[in-house]
Structure formats: structure tokens, C-alpha cells
């Protein structure tokens, strides 16, 4: 009597058994997933959006984790109200110090210049001088079109990099508008790119 309830009982028990086996498996999966699963701090991605505003570089998703040798696309948007930049900085502390001491020096030497004029002057210096320095520093570490991207408010840019060495790469904004004589970075406008081996 295949449909008697006695028979059904044992059939159901088999189902229970199966589901119990399912749990055992699930429990093992739990262990595996938790121990060897994806990095809880984030997965390497190949597309990041960086939004710049006063005075942060925010990335989505966070944190920025990239695999060595894989091209990664950054979509950079200036959502602030002043000019910002994204610049690869080998030594942030030194660079920031340099910029702000330069600003202060200019101000001391030319007391008749307004803040805007000083910033303009430094911008020029910064563009020519730093560009070379950075190109030099990034050589062999990363491939990309430019390592210093300046954006006016509302402007955006898409660019691609391929990192060749694992490590932490710091990006920062060294503009001065609004934080004069300090750079935006000193207000916290920087972020880190974590480059890992695959």
C-alpha cells in the first residue's frame, strides 16, 4: 500500500534525513565560506568611481583593491565647488609640506599678491614640476595615461591604470583653494589604492 500513512512516514523520514545531510553540508560550507571565503574587507574590482568634493576623495566601492597586472578603470568626478585633482603621490607628507611652504614663502615675499594669485602661481609650478616627479616615481610601478588629473567643478574623466607592483598607492589632492596655505590633502583629501597579487 504505497500511499498508506505508515509508508509516508518512512518516506518523509528519508526526506528529513536528506535535509539533515543538507545541513551538515551547509555547516561545512559555513565554515569554508567564513574561513576561506571572499575577503571581508572587499573584493578586487576593475571599476571604481572616485568622487571629489571638499575635502575628500570618496571611492565606490570602498576600499580600492586592485590586482597586479589587471587594468582597472577609474571614473573620476568632481562633485565639489572648487577645482580638485587626483594625483599619485609617492610621499604625501613631503609633497604637502612642500606645497604649503611654497605658498607661505610666496605670500611672505609678495605681500601685495592676493590669495588667488598665489594659488595660480603655485598651480603652474606644481603642474610642471610635479608632473615630471610623479612620472618618474611611477615608472615601472604602474601604467597609465596621466598620474595627475585636474578637474574643474562638475567635470569628470575616465582613465585606466595597470599596476605592476603590489603595495599601497596614495592618491591625493594638493590644491589650495579654501584651505590656503595648506593643501586639501591636509584636510583629509586623500585615499589609498591597495594593490594585491592575484
Amino acid at each position, binding site marked *: 500500500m504505497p500511499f498508506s500513512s*505508515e509508508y509516508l*512516514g*518512512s518516506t518523509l*523520514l*528519508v526526506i*528529513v*534525513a536528506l535535509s*539533515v545531510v543538507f*545541513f*551538515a553540508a551547509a*555547516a*561545512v560550507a*559555513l*565554515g569554508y565560506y*567564513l*574561513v*576561506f*571565503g*571572499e*575577503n*571581508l*574587507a*572587499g573584493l*578586487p574590482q576593475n571599476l571604481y568611481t572616485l568622487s571629489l568634493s571638499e575635502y575628500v576623495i570618496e571611492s565606490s566601492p*570602498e*576600499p580600492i*583593491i586592485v*590586482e597586479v597586472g589587471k587594468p582597472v578603470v577609474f571614473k573620476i568626478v568632481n562633485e565639489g565647488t572648487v577645482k580638485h585633482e587626483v594625483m599619485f603621490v609617492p*610621499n*604625501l*607628507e613631503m609633497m*604637502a609640506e612642500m606645497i604649503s611652504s611654497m605658498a607661505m614663502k610666496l605670500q611672505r615675499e609678495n605681500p601685495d599678491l592676493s590669495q588667488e594669485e598665489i594659488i595660480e602661481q603655485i598651480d603652474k609650478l606644481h603642474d610642471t614640476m610635479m608632473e615630471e616627479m610623479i612620472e618618474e616615481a611611477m615608472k615601472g610601478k604602474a601604467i597609465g595615461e596621466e598620474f595627475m588629473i585636474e578637474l574643474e567643478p562638475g567635470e569628470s574623466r575616465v582613465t585606466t591604470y595597470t599596476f605592476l607592483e*603590489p*603595495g*599601497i598607492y*596614495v592618491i591625493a589632492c594638493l590644491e589650495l583653494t579654501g584651505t590656503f596655505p*595648506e593643501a586639501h*590633502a*591636509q*584636510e*583629509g583629501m*586623500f585615499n*589609498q589604492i*591597495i*594593490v*594585491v*597579487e*592575484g
Partner: protein
Amino acid sequence: MFHYPFNPSELSETAKLWWDLFGFYLAVALILGAVIYASLVLIPVLYSRSRKSVDEIKPGVVPGDRGKTLYLAMIVLLIIAAFMSIFVESYISVNKLASLIEDEYGVNVDNLEQLQPGEVDGALIIEVRAFQWGWTFIYPNGVESDVLYLPEDRLVIFKVTSDDVFHAFAIPDLRVKIDAIPGQVNTSWTIPEKPGTYRIQCYELCGVGHAEMITKAVVLPQDLFDFWYKSMGEELKGLEGKG
């Protein structure tokens, strides 16, 4: 330097402690669980009524006690032994939570809440204030921030309190969690080991904004952290000077 994927137990010293323990517990649970489940499922199948005709239950007769004392004692002892192993492991791990930093940094964990900044070499003491609904992190140099910046590879001690109701301060990935209680300072510590951004969230129901008490902990390499810490501190001094 970095290999992907990061093992979650490498994210911090406390995470390592946690994952080692969790693995131990999981192993014990899976081994015991497998045996128990196997018997729970097999016995009813093997001894279903169609195969046997035992009937020791008689209406109106109080069933007697069954089971040889020897077997019963063995079962009880076996379970107690399993318990002992768990207990010993817990005891060691709880002590480890204290001794890990006691040995290395010479901190007395019994009165962490009285620690003053600078008292422990190399440690960073951060005051965490929870409120409805958000967080303020106060650094020894007076910097206040709503995002938590942490240095890599350095002992960080959190002194946690609340302005209004109970909250719980947690950085789950780093295995930090401690209640924020009005009128009381609780402490917790960790040593972050991997730069990155981690979720901070409140783990104790604190009103309608509870779900939104999320912010981030950014672990930076030492030099970058120092840059942030110093320039924010100078910023603050500048402001004070002017004001």
C-alpha cells in the same frame, strides 16, 4: 606584500584570535554533530515498527527506568569531557585576550578605562562617543572625526561611551565589539593588520536611527596615518589660534 584573498583572520590580531577559536569550536561541533545526527536519523529508520515488534509500554503501567548504570555513567562522563575541553579552550582564550597586550605592551587590562594617552608606548588611545544616531571619534591630539582612521600594525585602544542610550560599537571584520553605555567607559582593543576600509556599525537597538548608525574605519599604513593625524591636529591648532 599582499596576497589576495586576505584571510579574514589576518585582518587584525583580535580577528586572528577569533578565527582560531571558531575553527576549534566548529570542528568539535561538526564531529559530535555528525555522530549525533547519524544516530538520530538511522535509528528511526532501522528500528521502524515494520521490522520489530517490541512493546514495553503497557497502558496504566509506569515504565521503569532503563539503562545500565555503567553505560549511563559513560555517557555522562563523555559529555563532561567534551565540556571540559570547551571550557579549557574558552578559559585560555579569554585570558589571551588580556595577555596578548599585557605581555607585549605592558598594559594592565584591568583598568584600561583609566589609561591616559601616551601612557602606553606605541599605543593609540581613541575615545569613541556614541549618540543617537552616530559616532564621534576623538583622538589624543583633540581631533574629532566621524570616520575612524586607524594605523596599521599598532595597538589601538578604544574607550567607548555613550551620550544617551545603549549602543554597541563594533568593527565586525576586525572583531571589535563593545557596548557603549551612558555614564560608563568600556574599553576594547585591536591591532589592525591590513590597510583597507571596514564597516563600523551599531549592534544594540538604540531607536529608529539604529540601522543608520553605520560609518567606516579606514586602516592606513603608518606613514599615511601619521600624515593624516599630524595635519588634522595642526589644522585644529590653527583654528584655536585664530579663535
